[in-house]
């Protein structure tokens, strides 16, 4: 089966983070493959192992987003496509979904895999938009994914448990961390990734225009900070005593 995984390069969650003067998230410092996307790649690789086929990674971003694709290739994906164009800089979720869809549609994938939401933007909107534009059903918040023949079954996580959701392929699935630990790239995988193909396509090649943004940013302010509280070093008993006093003051005991 042909599996496409949409991935994103984000500011490294473990690195220093900042905002540009125009209030875009800083992407000039340390960057990483979005940790949420590693779960997507893992699901795709397991399906490839059980069903056979090919895993193609698709990302939109600047030239250096190649590094994120390369990481996925070293985990075991077969090839990468990078959509890179200045017309797409600062793209909102809909433009991102349109760009991804334009690159993915010609691949005739059986399954498109996404994370649930990115670490930086966190809107969670690209997967349903991408499904809509590609004309696919979306199986969202999937914590377990199984493919049998031409149908897919997922456990869709809910606030109090899960739903079992089925659809016929082709489909789009957005996965959570519950699918299981992503594999590390082996040395062999890293070496093999060097010779795997990453093709670069432009917005013009995909016939994309920037369109009209959904919103205009009017300002960014610091969030209302909680007033500074009291800090106490525990000496073995005073910490618990102080907490009990606070719980009494809050009238919960």
């Amino acid at each position, binding site marked *: 089966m042909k599996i496409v995984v949409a991935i994103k390069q984000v500011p490294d969650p473990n690195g220093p*983070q900042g*905002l540009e003067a125009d209030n875009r998230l800083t992407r000039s410092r340390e960057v990483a493959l979005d940790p949420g996307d590693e779960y997507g790649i893992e699901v795709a690789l397991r399906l490839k192992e059980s069903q056979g086929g090919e895993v193609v990674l698709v990302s939109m971003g600047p030239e250096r987003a190649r590094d994120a694709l390369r990481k996925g290739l070293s985990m075991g994906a077969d090839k990468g496509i990078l959509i890179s164009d200045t017309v797409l800089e600062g793209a909102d*979720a*809909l433009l991102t979904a349109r760009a991804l869809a334009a690159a993915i549609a010609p691949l005739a994938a059986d399954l498109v895999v996404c994370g649930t939401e990115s670490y930086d933007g*966190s*809107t*969670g*909107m690209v997967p*349903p*938009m991408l499904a*809509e534009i590609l004309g696919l*059903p*979306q199986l*969202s*918040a999937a914590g377990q994914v199984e493919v049998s023949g031409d149908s897919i079954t997922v*456990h*869709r*996580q*809910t*606030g*109090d*448990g*899960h*739903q*079992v*959701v*089925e*659809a016929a392929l082709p*489909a789009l699935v957005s996965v*959570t*961390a519950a699918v299981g630990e992503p594999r590390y790239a082996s040395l062999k995988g890293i070496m093999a990734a060097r010779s795997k193909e990453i093709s670069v396509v432009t917005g013009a090649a995909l016939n994309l225009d920037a369109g*009209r*943004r*959904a*919103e*205009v*940013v*009017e300002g*960014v*302010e*610091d*969030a209302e*900070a*909680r007033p500074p*509280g*009291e*800090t*106490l*070093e525990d000496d073995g*008993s005073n*910490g*618990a*005593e102080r*907490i*009990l006093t*606070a*719980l009494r003051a*809050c009238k*919960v*005991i």
Partner: protein
Amino acid sequence: MAKIWVYAEIKDGVLEGTALELLTCARKFGGVEAIALGPGSRASVPALSAHGASRVLFSEEAVFADYLAEPHTDVMAALVLERSPDLVLFGFTSDSRDVAGRLAARLGCGLISNGIGLEVDASGVRVQVPYFGGAKVATYRANQQPALVLIRPRSFAASESGGAVDLEELAVEPSPASLRARIVDRKIEASERVKLEDAKVVVAGGRGLGGAENFSLLEDLAEALGGAVGASRAVVDAGWVPYSTQVGQTGKTVTPEVYIAAGISGAMQHTVGMKGSKFVIAINRDKDAPILKIADLGIVGDALRIVPQVTQGIRDQRGT
């Protein structure tokens, strides 16, 4: 006056409470109508009306409960095109997100997601969106008609306003092409004594607890306090506790009287889900942990020692 719609999600036959919060906020800005789809929608009318919906459009059609997003999107798209609302509000919950995302793509109008505040006046629709995991708040002005906006649960308190309601039962003919992602079974995993979202006290744990086995200490404290147990994303991802306990950006938003964070460093991904708590107590070995900067009471120390002491202290006070 702006024409505002609230998408009132029906989940397992019951109205999802965020709709009432959205109605309470939106009624200040114009006439508000609610759209409720699926079995249970008719029964949701009194609550929707009491919170300010002047009209409720509903359908008891079963496909809305049996299939994900697509039949809902069909109805919403047709209604928007026919009746041109200025603003459609959705709760930032997983079912509503799927519908809103598809609807925005189908209408080609984009949307504003993850909002925590809303203002509507003659100059437009403005949405406050936490940025940067909640350290910053951006103000977005909607640039499209209609404006589609998703608001995080518990961004506003719900309150009743009363008033008369017009009822409109929608004649829905589901398109077979949209009946694809089908819910074939539902499993309830969490047998919570107290629902996390409704608990007056939340005792939450993170990686600092050292291992899944130590969560029982939090359960003991939560039980003594009549509260619920929460968790950071890190320990949910690590499989220590189920997803249903996760508090934060990707999990639940809670606003208890007291939030106790044990061994949680306080990444923004977590704090965005608990910042609205009235009183925050943090226990962490690292005196530089970000959680201590937002806590009302921060204890620098070992949660594994302190938590059982607190539990025992409560039991002693009660004489149990």
